[in-house]
């Protein structure tokens, strides 16, 4: 029988890590209102942000690690 891939095992195991949520949060829920403000959103406008990453990938040799589905290649 074929062994399940490591990625699949990781996908299954990650929810189990939820047990770690017993750790006492050092920033309390009532102290997090700043993160609910729209100006703190990492990617406020997904369409506009993705387009700019596309421009970078098309004109530069580097790719990936942009916090979203980066990578692939560039086109010019």
């Amino acid at each position: 029988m074929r062994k399940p891939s490591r990625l699949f095992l990781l996908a299954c195991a990650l929810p189990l890590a939820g047990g770690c949520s017993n750790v006492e949060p050092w920033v309390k829920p009532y102290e997090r209102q700043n993160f609910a403000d729209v100006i703190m959103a990492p990617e406020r406008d997904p369409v506009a942000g993705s387009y700019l990453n596309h421009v970078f990938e098309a004109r530069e040799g580097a790719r990936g690690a942009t916090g979203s589905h980066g990578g692939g290649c560039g086109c010019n």
Partner: protein
Amino acid sequence: MSNGKRIGALTTLAGTIVASSATQGAVLPDDRADAMYHQYDGGGVTIDGPSLLVRKKFAEKYSASASYYMDMVSSASIDVISTASPYKEERTQGGIAFDALQGKTQYSVSYALSDENDYTANTASLDVSQDLFGDLTTVSFGFSQGWDEVRKRGDNAFEEQVDRRNYRLGVTQILTPKLMATLDYEVITDEGFLNNPYRSVRYLDESSGVGYSYQPEVYPQTRTSNAAGITARYYLPYRASVHGGYRWYTDTWGIDAHTVSVGYTHPWGPHWILEAGYRWYDQSAADFYSDLFPRADAQNFLARDKELSTFHNQMLSFGATYELPALGWKRIRRSTVNVFVDHIQYDYEDFRDVTKGGAPGEEPLYGFDANVVRVFFSGWF
């Protein structure tokens, strides 16, 4: 293929749009619709077109989205006017995504198809994210598989394949009541026909009137890259935020790159959000890149793609978001209009402008400015 490299990025763009919520933890993305007009203008190339996105939650645990994107390309870039004729073409892409929330775990799958007259790209992606430690930490990982087909205009027998794989890992951490940071790491592997069937390299040729001639470029059949980035966002003592980021990049073609970015976001009155940013990027050349090879077939691999040369660029960004008064539409509870303008200056350090003339290898170095405009409407329902 727009006289360029592969267009797989279009596919990843679609994947990004429809599944970018994957790293945001165990909260399904808002129901929203976006309609954007985008334009890139610089270096003799104009690319513009529409981009659309619609997202909708259902049964409180699921979310689906669809996106559409189009590029209309008009190119008279330096590559084109050096060795070919200006051209126009179109490319379109579509994407769909599905998110499911189970407790503090979010699963996202997406598929995207990009198509133009000489390139087709298919990409499937899976992303998982999990909130930990009282929701202070979000861990995410994902995988994408791409299958591309490369064709060549005027040569019906030409058909090559490219296999792409992306492996990504991210951690977002709330550090203090005002500071959050994100670490991203991504490995990308490509295998197949990775160069451009239209592009040429130049080499010294005394028998030519100008002192050089051209031959087709030859790239390796594989490429693996590693990239790691950190970004941080801080809420200032008044209602405004600053953010900064750094990305390190290296690949098996010998390119090393560094990216630094900073930005400032400032609400103004009840309706406006203004922002400004600066980004610096620099890279070293690929091992097999040269602006001018000493002879024909000088080495196994040959490239004269300026995106593989040594260069740096700087970008200044400005943006404004205006929250519209209630439109009176039953289904739209909130809406904005947005304008973002970016100015980018590219300076190449070993890519020469052969259109300016001069002795081979002594032509002026190339550089150009580009403007990127994004105008869009967003509605939340």
